[in-house]
């Protein structure tokens, strides 16, 4: 069909896009568009992309459960009916946080071309990536619970609402911390190295394979400064019926608010250098 070339105009009248949208409408529209695009793009990158999301926590759980079986033998001193449940609900919340932080890293530099469209700002990309990675981890939890139930076990959920709330808290924590790291890491690239060095032991001190009350009291006071430990422990408290988590919601959310404030303030201040 060469109709457009035969007419005198090259550009036929096309639908007008809505003008004068509020900034909230622009934000929601861009987020939706970017989410769809990223999901397609990730699937295009590797057909197994979503399977790999399952692999990392699954491998972690397998290694931890294996080690536990070797070291402790048959008699486990963990909460819950099975060490597998115990480790799954350490690995899922931890990787939820860690993957959301990781997803935020490098968005400013890798998506520079996108910021030519004024509708898209780094924070949109950061949030959308975080949502995708966060949802993947929630998916992992759902897959595990469904599989656990299918194998004939009872569903180990003592407080589903608290579980959702704890996972959501870790997601917000990941976005906030990721924003702080990304803003300062983009402005001072050397800082990225320091950050990655400092956050390397996070896996070991965030309660993936222990609860707060398993720690000796001297160590406990130090570890409790880590907000991720609070989040992971609260997740476990929501899942294991006999475990009452001593972690603090107010410390976790206090930390989130402070990190979020610093991140957003720095983002606002340095936006002109991020795009």
């Amino acid at each position: 069909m060469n109709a457009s070339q035969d007419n005198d105009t090259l550009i036929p009248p096309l639908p007008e896009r809505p003008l004068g949208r509020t900034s909230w409408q622009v934000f929601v529209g861009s987020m939706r568009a970017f989410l769809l695009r990223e999901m397609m793009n990730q699937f295009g990158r590797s057909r197994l992309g979503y399977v790999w999301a399952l692999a990392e926590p699954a491998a972690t759980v397998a290694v931890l459960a294996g080690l536990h079986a070797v070291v402790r033998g048959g008699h486990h001193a963990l909460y819950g009916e099975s060490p597998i449940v115990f480790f799954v609900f350490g690995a899922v919340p931890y990787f939820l946080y860690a993957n959301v932080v990781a997803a935020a890293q490098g968005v400013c530099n890798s998506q520079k071309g996108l910021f030519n469209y004024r509708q898209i700002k780094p924070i949109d990309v950061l949030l959308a990536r975080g949502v995708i990675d966060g949802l993947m981890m929630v998916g992992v939890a759902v897959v595990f619970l469904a599989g656990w139930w299918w194998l004939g076990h009872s569903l180990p959920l003592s407080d589903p609402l608290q579980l959702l709330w704890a996972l959501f808290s870790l997601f917000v924590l990941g976005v906030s911390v990721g924003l702080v790291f990304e803003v300062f890491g983009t402005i001072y690239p050397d800082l990225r190295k320091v950050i990655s060095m400092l956050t390397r032991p996070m896996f070991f001190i965030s309660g993936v394979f222990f609860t707060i009350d398993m720690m000796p009291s001297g160590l406990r006071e130090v570890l409790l400064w880590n907000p991720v430990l609070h989040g992971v422990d609260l997740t476990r408290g929501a899942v294991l019926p006999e475990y009452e988590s001593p972690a603090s919601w107010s410390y976790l959310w206090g930390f989130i608010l402070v990190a979020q404030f610093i991140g957003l303030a720095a983002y606002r201040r340095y936006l002109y250098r991020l795009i």
Partner: protein
Amino acid sequence: MIQVHNLTKSYPLEGFSRYFVFRGISFELPSRTHVGIVGRNGAGKSTLLRLLGGMELPDTGQVRSDGLISPPLGLSSGFAQKISGRNNARFICRINGDDNAAARERVEFIREFSELGEFFERPVETYSSGMKARLAFSISMSFRYDYYLIDELTAVGDQKFRAKAQATFAEKKGQASIIMVSHNLQALQRDCEVGLYMSPRGPLYFDDIGEAIAAYKKDQNTR
């Protein structure tokens, strides 16, 4: 009309020093008139264009306009590599607020205008640079703007497509502005009406593109 008022833009150098691309410049560009911007390398032409489009934020000063300013045309760095040209086009429609029906109509226009054929359904990573530029150009042209920004439109595809692009500019005359940065002075002379010369003394506006080019050439010869 685009009003640029007291605009300053600088970039950090090593240490605490800064490089000032321009300091406190002010000028006006008319609407519905094609503008050619000339100047030496590093005179701040591209930076100015990016500031006009809001891709970068100035240190001080402001840009005011009475109409819509496009993103720089023919810019292909924003595409997702693993998804098709169609899906990339649809993404741009969505962030501009199109509903599904409007997006479908617009994407159909983009498919036809870009003349990509079956490549329109293939991932962008399989495109040649000219094909990418054609897709980007077609997407920009599918939206109505009052000011279209173009930074060096040398890469827009082959001879045939370039002629088409030029015909589009001619068609836009009297309806919209095209603000074009180029080192191809003949193209500017042909496509533009008024000119802005980014001289070392600051921007100089000329009502006739020929005068702007003459001033630029004269400066170069005296050096």
